[in-house]
């Protein structure tokens, strides 16, 4: 039977099985990665892909399936997904790309690969409790008063400090 020229099942080589794909699969949100059949519907639906040649969600999933761990984790590509989920709406295999790229980002973050703009914003949020403390000027306060809104915004910054201590200090290398 092995001599009749017909490939046996065990030598079919398109079953995604890289260690990196298995690692992503175990991560929260990464569970669906093995369902991808590489049809390209995601790239066809993607507004980022339509405007930027360097980003192709199908190819990024392919790199993960093939096990290009360092290449993927150290690149900006997983961070270019807008998580708009238009691709997920159209994927016939229910691959949840936005969740998968979040899972990849989480692994990348643990190894110190976070784009500077993301890291700066995360640091700010985990310090102030919210995003726009520095942007809240007297002018905006006046606008709020004129509109009959409370100019005191009353954000809590204690809780995020606990979050930072529990999940980030020492957890992120680099």
């Amino acid at each position, binding site marked *: 039977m092995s001599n009749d020229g017909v490939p046996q099942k065990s030598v079919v080589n398109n079953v995604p099985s890289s260690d990196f794909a298995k690692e992503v699969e175990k991560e929260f949100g990464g569970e669906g990665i093995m369902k991808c059949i590489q049809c390209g519907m995601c790239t066809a639906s993607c507004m980022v892909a339509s405007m930027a040649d360097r980003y192709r969600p199908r190819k990024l999933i392919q790199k993960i399936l093939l096990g290009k761990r360092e290449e993927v984790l150290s690149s900006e590509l997983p961070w270019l997904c807008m*998580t708009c989920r238009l691709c997920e709406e159209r994927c016939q295999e229910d691959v949840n790309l936005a969740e998968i790229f*979040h899972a990849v980002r989480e692994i990348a973050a643990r190894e110190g690969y*976070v784009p500077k703009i993301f890291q700066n914003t*995360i640091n700010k949020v985990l310090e102030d409790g919210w995003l726009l403390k520095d*942007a809240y000027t007297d002018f905006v306060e006046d606008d709020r008063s004129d509109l009959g809104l409370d100019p005191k915004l009353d*954000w809590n910054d204690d809780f*995020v400090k606990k*979050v930072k201590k529990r999940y980030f200090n020492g957890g992120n290398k680099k």
Partner: protein
Amino acid sequence: MKEFVLYTGCTTPVRLPAYEAAITIVLEKLGVRLIPMKDANCCGAQYVESVSHTAFAAMSGRILAIAESMDRDILAVCGACSGSLKIVKHDLDHNPDLRAEVNDLLAEEGLKYTGTVEVKHLLQIFNEDIGYDAIKAAIVKPYNGVRLAAHYGCHVTRPPEIVQVDNPETPVIIDKIIEIAGATPVDYTGKTRCCGGPMLAMDQEVANKIGLDKIKNIRSERAQGIVTACVFCDIQLTQVQFGDTAGSEPKIPVLTLPQFLGPALGINFDKLGIQLNKISPEAILQVT
């Protein structure tokens, strides 16, 4: 009168306070009272969400738990916040370990997540809690057919199985309200595509291209204005029209859904913050 806890999120109160004012007054007019959430924190969308799912769940989980302590459902007016709160609620409801972890952190300030509150986006309040008939009955100054393009916002409508707001490919709520108020909803290519806002951090040029592509599609249907239901989308679709690559065609006014609906309900422009809009919509807001 129905009551909801208003979670404004970080961006609306600073970048688009007119949206907050218009929501409050329009909903009040339609029988919904909002109670501001005090002592809140950022929901963690996009940034913390990207690097630690557990930390993200803790941040959104705290907001859900505060609403529980106030014994009211949440109204979220930003696509990112409503999406985050709904996704985290889904996760906490399906993952006991995650819930225990978040509750462990919340216990220090006497808060607890048990899953009793619902999270609603503004569009759901209009559709489910007020209803089209009641909106119709409250119209005192209908529009005269002005052509308007609805932009729904990705995180408002997707993932549909979790957020449960509207059809993700052919959403209708904003269009129906446009029609009820006497204006003309205009369909256009790429209606459910992203505004490009989430790309601003990583690549502003690509973000602008995505936003301007949407403006181009809306313009080609001769729409006179764009009606939004997310603070990020509203800001993005406005600011791309001021960029160097925006071209010389007249700018299309962008306004939030309550700012559009308000005048038809007889509410004055100044209470809706119309004067704060960067592209004045006054010419298209002439009610009869």
